[in-house]
């Protein structure tokens, strides 16, 4: 399911990313690669603050919907 469907506080594993190459590469540099465990810290109108490893990444709704996770 897309990351946008994950509820706040629940953990999930990134399965794959449907974003364009450039965005995808940037997400990978930030640690958002397939297999990474993520959870949502906060949600604001679809935009998310994501917890991955020890960092917090803010994502807009569009890019969050391109990250497919399995819980």
């Amino acid at each position, binding site marked *: 399911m897309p990351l946008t469907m994950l509820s706040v506080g629940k953990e999930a594993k990134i399965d794959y990313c449907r974003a364009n190459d450039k965005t995808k590469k940037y997400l990978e540099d930030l640690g958002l690669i397939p297999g990474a465990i993520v959870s949502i810290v906060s949600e604001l109108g679809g935009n998310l*603050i994501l917890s991955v490893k020890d960092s*917090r990444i803010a994502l807009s709704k569009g890019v969050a919907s391109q990250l497919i996770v399995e819980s």
Partner: protein
Amino acid sequence: MVFNDERGIEMSYTFALVGNPNSGKTTMFNEITGNTQYVGNWPGVTVEKKEGKARRFKDDISIIDLPGIYSLSPYTMEEIIARDYIVDEKPDVIINIVDASNIERNLYLTTQLIELGIPVVVALNMIDVVNLRHDKIDIEKLEEGFGVSVLVASASKGLGVTEVVEKALELAKSATVKKSELSHRIFDNEVEDSLKKVKELVNMLANKSGYSARWLALKLLEEDIKLKEKLDVSEVMMSDIKKLGQELENKYDNDIETIIADNRYRFISGVIAKAVSRKSKGNTLTMSDKIDKVVTNRILAIPIFLLVMLSIFQVSFGSIGSYTIDWLDVFINKTISGFLTSLLEAGGAADWLKALIIDGILAGMGSMLVFVPQIMIVFFFLSLLEDSGYMARAAFVMDRVLRKLGLSGKSFIPMLMGFGCSVPAVMAARTLENEKDRRLTIILTPFMSCGARLPVYALFAAAFFAKNQGVVIFSIYILGILIAVLSGIFLKRFILKGEVAPFVMELPPYRIPTLKGLSIHMLDRGKGFVKKAGTVIFAASVIIWFLQTFSFTFQMVENPADSIMGGVGRLISFVFAPLGFNDWRASVALLTGVVAKEVVVSTLGILSGVGEISEGSAELAIALQTYFTPLKAYAFMAFTLLYMPCVAAFGAIKREMNSWKWTLFTVGYQTGTAWLVAFLIYQVGKVMGLG
């Protein structure tokens, strides 16, 4: 590396500081060099590389602070700057700053740095945060895993910094670069095999370019377009490499970049599993998370944001801000002016000298110096927002709003900084990945009213809207924001068309700002304005005084209207006539305001002959009332807000746009908008009977 053969001991070295954004590089830089570079708490503080000399060492060590980067792939401008520096300038040692409290992600860059063939020292920074969490990091295991020296440090507390530089020096001095053994352990055998094949293909190219063959092979396997263009790699070679890449992609059923990133992260996980023992479980909410649950809450986020912004305005432009102005006004225009006048009279100075000092220099500089404390208050709050980490959250909160205007949340940081000074604000737009987004942000940022424009509003508000000064000044700021919003929609629709880049930004943990950090920034900025008053404004004041005292035939004139300045002013005033301020003094003030916006005030001060009478700006206000009405004054303020920024900001725009076409478009658009808005204010106001 430079050797001094005769003495054989003095040598000079270059060490580069490389690390993720917010890993504490700039703090480390300041600690090593004794500099006081400003450190913010948002990604992208260091937009350009900075250089300094290491203290406390006999050898001549240059320290280069590079922009924070997440990887060596050239996807943002900062990454390009940092990578180009490292691979082309080849520093003697890379000091890799790793945020120990976010070790896994930070080591991702480390896995790339150790491939470059340049000695690397890892400074495990913010170790105090790890200790506080009661986590344990086994340094030896980390060194073993990565094949590099690792030293713990806490740059903010000044701990371990000297040791890091000593270690780097040791590495630089040992002639043999210890080739790290580990590189081939990062990747799976399949990837290694392909890499070997690519390496054979690019060996010649590597020798020619001086890059490490392995690194070059890896980058070309990743289809690094920037590098391919730079080295002019032939299409034949590229297609051979691509074939090898495709084989890998088929094997893994994934694309090559993901395969390599995944390999790196798995390698890191392996080392971390041995080297780091965590007491804290991964899923617990940190203090920052708890604050974020409130600050970015769907109901509270916007009200909190507005409250923060309004309080900043209230304090800066309300009672406290104006108190400092009144106080300094009396001090400069009564105490100092009076003192200087009596001194000059006692010394029997010539009339022209007295006029130059009192009417020219003091009137010019004094009328802007009174605003320095208020400008410093604005900067105090800006650094408070940056240092605490709220700035990055505000960008997140504003993303949805800005996206509707065709901008990204990342545009918010440059725009907010624009309220301080347009120059760093325009440069801060570099964090935007997408070129169109960046151009648009650069065009709109100067509409945010910078500190230097404040004296103009303050002067006019006091002279014409004495009862509602605060409201009038506030409305000018709002006007700037409104024009930026409308311009954003307009430009995105017709000129800078295209999809806005998705908002992806790391949020730094909240930190309690230190008084030291805040005052460094505030005093630094204050000093900047005083220095500007002492140099640019001083020179401008002398020139303006000269031009308004002498006629074209270099005769001293009785009435400034007959002076050179008067002539020029009358020549251009027709442009401003439809806007209501067709007086030659207003025209000249706007012209000189391009030097620096405060000069608008000093010019009006000089041209109105204030200074002699030690009543200061109150006197100037009375003088202005002879050729402005409240409506004209408001149109003038709006024009000052919107028209092309000062030469310093113009220079920054030129550098950042890297194109004359776009630079001229930017200032043309701004000045055109200024004219149109002032025109509408004046004409509509006149129809409504306000004029």
